[in-house]
């Protein structure tokens, strides 16, 4: 029933060969046991993140065994600080992917907003850091809105629109900076303090990420607009027929993604105390990988805030742990890829065995 007209590799799944397990749960119990069934299926849904979380914990223990400095407070703080930007971007990307889209331009948007903000701050050292954050976010928002307009109104496929704008934004960054970098000495301490300072005893970056997660959790699960975004991703045709403002929501999703990229641009520049033209080049693929690890379905409609969090943490952990393990630099990429592959496959195996158990339990 899912997207009858839309060619979709996912659709193969819906053939009789492998039906969603909840359905099997539904048939397993005769009518009357509705409540029991629901709780069962709810548990299975949770299982995904749990499985991944288990993997993360296992990996953490393994690393800890090899290098005891891994699970120190300081290292965990470093890890989270480094994963903060990734995890914020992954939130926006989750929404984009939920609507069956993809955004390849975020690295470029991030660089553009970071560069403009850095230039502004270096010209006006007195600028309040909050103003810098707002400026960056606004620039990202503008970029994202433009993209959203292309996707929602002109109907350009997201992969093309964002690929094109990736080039444009990147080119603009180079042009605006005139080939120069903005360096640490040009940035006032108040600005770089965005990344080093702390709020309520938590590093600002981590704090911002936590706030972003809280806001997103609320937005996605407890507001109409949030749920409608999922509806659009789940079945765009149905969404149109039932009067959901699909175009506006698509636009909103890209605008949010842009705003987050803009915000992260400022954070990035503040964190590294340097703005360059090639900042975060290719970073979009890492962000997408985090989403995918976190169980966001490329086919749309599926994706959870908690999953994205775990996915980003896993990637953040890999980046943090491999240098600690004294792995040869030449092996790092391969190992990283291998672990991601393993995590994804393990997820599938677990899911399949759960399915099989359900089938076995069915009464015929």
């Amino acid at each position, binding site marked *: 029933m899912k997207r009858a007209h839309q060619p979709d590799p996912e659709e193969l799944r819906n053939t009789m060969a492998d039906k969603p397990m909840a359905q099997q749960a539904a048939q397993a119990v005769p009518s009357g046991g509705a409540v029991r069934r629901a709780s069962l299926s709810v548990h299975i849904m949770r299982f995904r993140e749990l499985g991944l979380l288990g993997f993360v914990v296992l990996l953490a223990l393994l690393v800890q065994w090899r*290098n005891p*400095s*891994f699970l*120190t407070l*300081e*290292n965990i703080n*470093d890890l989270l600080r*480094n994963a903060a930007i990734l995890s914020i971007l992954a939130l926006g990307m989750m929404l984009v992917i939920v609507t069956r889209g993809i955004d390849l331009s975020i690295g470029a948007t991030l660089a553009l907003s970071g560069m403009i903000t850095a230039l502004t701050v270096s010209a006006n050292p007195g600028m309040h850091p909050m103003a810098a954050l707002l400026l960056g976010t606004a620039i990202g928002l503008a970029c994202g809105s433009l993209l959203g307009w292309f996707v929602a109104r002109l109907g350009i496929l997201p992969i093309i629109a964002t690929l094109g704008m990736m080039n444009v934004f*990147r*080119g603009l*960054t*180079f042009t605006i*900076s*005139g*080939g*120069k*970098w903005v*360096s*640490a*000495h*040009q940035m006032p301490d108040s600005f770089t303090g965005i*990344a*080093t300072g702390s709020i309520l005893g938590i590093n600002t970056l981590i704090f911002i990420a936590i706030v972003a997660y809280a806001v997103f959790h609320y937005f996605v699960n407890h507001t109409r607009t949030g749920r409608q975004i999922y509806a659009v991703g789940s079945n765009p045709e149905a969404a149109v027929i039932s009067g959901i403002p699909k175009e506006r929501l698509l636009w909103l999703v890209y605008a949010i993604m842009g705003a987050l990229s803009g915000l992260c641009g400022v954070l*990035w520049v503040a*964190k*590294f*105390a*340097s703005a*360059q*033209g*090639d*900042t975060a*080049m290719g970073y979009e693929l890492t962000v997408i990988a985090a989403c995918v690890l976190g169980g966001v379905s490329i086919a749309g409609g599926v994706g959870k805030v908690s999953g994205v969090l775990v996915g980003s943490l896993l990637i953040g952990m890999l*980046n*943090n742990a*491999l*240098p*600690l393990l*004294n792995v040869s*630099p*030449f092996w790092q990429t391969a190992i990283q890829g291998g672990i991601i592959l393993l995590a994804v496959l393990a997820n599938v195996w677990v899911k399949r065995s759960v399915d099989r158990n359900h089938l076995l339990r069915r009464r015929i």
Partner: protein
Amino acid sequence: AACGGNNNSGNTGNSGASGTEGNSSGQAEAKDDTPKKHAIIFKNAGNPYGEKMIEGFREAMAELGHEVIAKAPDQPTAEAQIQIIEELIAQKVDSIAIAANDSDALEPALKKAMDRGIKVLSLDSAVNANSRLVHVNQADPERIGRTLIQAIHEMIGGEGQIAILSATSQATNQNIWIEWMKKELENPVYANIELVKVAYGDDLRDKSVSETEGLLKSYPDLKGIIAPTTVGIAAAGKVLTDKGLKGQVQLTGLGLPSEMAEYIESGVCQWMYLWNPIDVGYLAAYAADALVKGDITGAVGETFKAGRLGEKSIVRDGEDGTQIMLGDPFRFDQSNIAEWKNVY
């Protein structure tokens, strides 16, 4: 049907037969003063270091009255530089000065250029001896390597663990410098210094930061970090500053004054080195002009006048290459950083 690459030796690196004589063929070498077209290719666009180099190149060419074509690909890859070389060949430029993204991979393309009578030289980051007439070397790799070890030795008081934070694992320059550093360390003077690791930050900010943090955690007794790359040293400076390790872990290496001013002024990095990229470009321009005019051919012993830099001579570079030395690396410390930080 022609084909590139007449490379017949089997070893890597700077090898191969004489690349110079056979190529300076044909072309009329009348010493005319008509304006020529000189091209410079940098590694990638949007790199202030490269911009400065190009600035120096332009400055010299303006003095000489020639036209400059300055190019850089959007990404630092050899593939993109090959394409640019093709475009320059088509425009029939007179010389190409290139800061290479890969020492070997440009060989067929540059040979094609030389076959068409274009004078090819490399600057900053060399191509192998086969694919150039001469290399304009910003500083002697041996001097850089040894100087950096000497510097860290002095900073940490002659004893303790040190680590190197490099660019990518295949960056040619860095690898040569690291080789020299290791050679220098063999000197008994450094018996108490232990090089614990060479980490690679890939010239990416985030990766360099993670790698630095990893070093600090894996080697709690680490006394010093040498980062012979501009991105790496700035990232390391930032990490040391943020973690309040000033004075506990020393930092030196090669960095841009503008990027490092903050850390040199604060003392996180007591001093570091770099050459003047403007002069590198400037020197390359005079060398290119001399090559085109036929004043030099790239052979050892030849000399030419390089504007404000005075008389320069061509010296041997390794087995079979030749190079022009700019001079020693320049030391930046608290006394002079203020005047340089706004230059480049």
